[in-house]
């Protein structure tokens, strides 16, 4: 019977990376925003992780990261928990069934996931509650620039998780 190899060191390193990014995302350590574009680093990180992960890994990573983000997000009860879980399993399914596992696919997926996240955020918190002018302003001035800026960070995370994958396989 084929037994799955366990890598406690890689597992711990993964937890530390996620913890560092989540705390960086929710603390005021360094502001890397450009004008209204505030990158959500957890999105490219989840994309890269789920790209090389199995189903359970993608599911848990999305759930736990989302719950942490929900603890600081205004107005959100379970929005981030649900959306990040769904997006990370979406990356898992798309990377395994629709895309090749290369950097181009990762960039397309990162852009898609970031855009989807911000469109959902806009839909649930601005489109329904805010007037047309305000919701359009949020979408164009904040959401879309932030989505594109977030997706840029796929490069370091993609190569990091590709390296981890190679380590696991050898």
């Amino acid at each position, binding site marked *: 019977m084929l037994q799955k190899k366990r890598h406690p060191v890689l597992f711990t390193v993964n937890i530390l990376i996620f913890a560092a990014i989540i705390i960086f995302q*929710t*603390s005021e350590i360094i502001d890397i925003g450009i004008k209204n574009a505030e990158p959500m680093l957890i999105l490219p990180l989840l994309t890269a992780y789920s790209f090389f992960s199995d189903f359970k890994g993608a599911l848990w990573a999305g759930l736990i990261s989302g719950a942490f983000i929900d603890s600081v997000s*205004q107005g959100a009860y379970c929005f981030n928990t649900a959306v990040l879980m769904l997006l990370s399993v979406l990356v898992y399914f798309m990377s395994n069934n629709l895309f090749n596992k290369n950097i181009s696919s990762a960039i397309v997926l990162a852009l898609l996931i970031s855009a989807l996240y911000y469109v959902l955020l806009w839909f649930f918190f601005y489109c329904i509650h805010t007037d047309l002018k305000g919701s359009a302003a949020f979408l164009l001035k904040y959401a879309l620039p932030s989505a594109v800026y977030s997706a840029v960070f796929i490069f370091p995370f993609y190569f990091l998780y590709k390296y981890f994958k190679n380590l696991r396989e050898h």
Partner: protein
Amino acid sequence: MRFFFRSKQFKIILSITLGLIIISVTCFFVGGRLSPQADILGTAAAPFRAALTAASNGIKDFVSAYTEGNEALIKNAELENEISELRKQLADYEKVLGENEFYKNYLDIKDSNPDFAFCPATLISRDKNDPYLGFVINKGSTDGISANDPVITEAGLVGYITAVGLTTSKVATVLSPDITLGALDNRTNDSGVLTGTLELAESGETRLYNLSRSCSVAVGDYVITSGEGIFPSGLLVGSIQSIGSDEYNISIYAAVKPFVDLNEIRSVMVITDFDGKGGLKPEKGK
């Protein structure tokens, strides 16, 4: 595709999503509480966030001392390297001095409002996706904080508590459209309703609307809370920056710049109790 809908993976995703929807709906109707999973993880992460925020504030102070060319502080920093023990004592002394100043300012507010009960709190994280500069503080229901409690600094009104966890709470600022509070022009006593908009939030302002066309508000006037809604009366909000007319020419509005610099907040006071607490709750917005 139909095999996917019958798979175990799909059933897991569906059941978790349904569970989260049920939690969200329950939290929405209960109101004012963090969702259980966010509360647990938020409580676990709070000490790390607080430590990192304190460290980053220290670094910011150090960098700003250099960039602003404050020679005394630079000299002080150089001396600190040489006499580390003295530096530690000096840092402790300055911290106590700052805290004394902080509490003295609140004591003035407390003196003029003996009915106020305060709970001091520190900002530990910000929601970077919130254009209205909402943030999280390090105090929660175990410290006596409840939803809709007003949040102030010595400079004036900051906002109110939107959701409470065990050891953390979320604060919506006066820039947010979630806030709808009765406010007065301190000079003329003209009353209106204060609420935020996305356009004004970009320039760090909020809007006092529903002012009568015959009112005599002027640029530079101070705006204070009128006591309607969840806020006590007499809290300083900000000063009027500009005045305009609404699209139907029925009433006028004023853009108000809050006295509190919402980008630079580090410590706040939550008013946990005051005479007349329990007024109208803010409308549910975002």
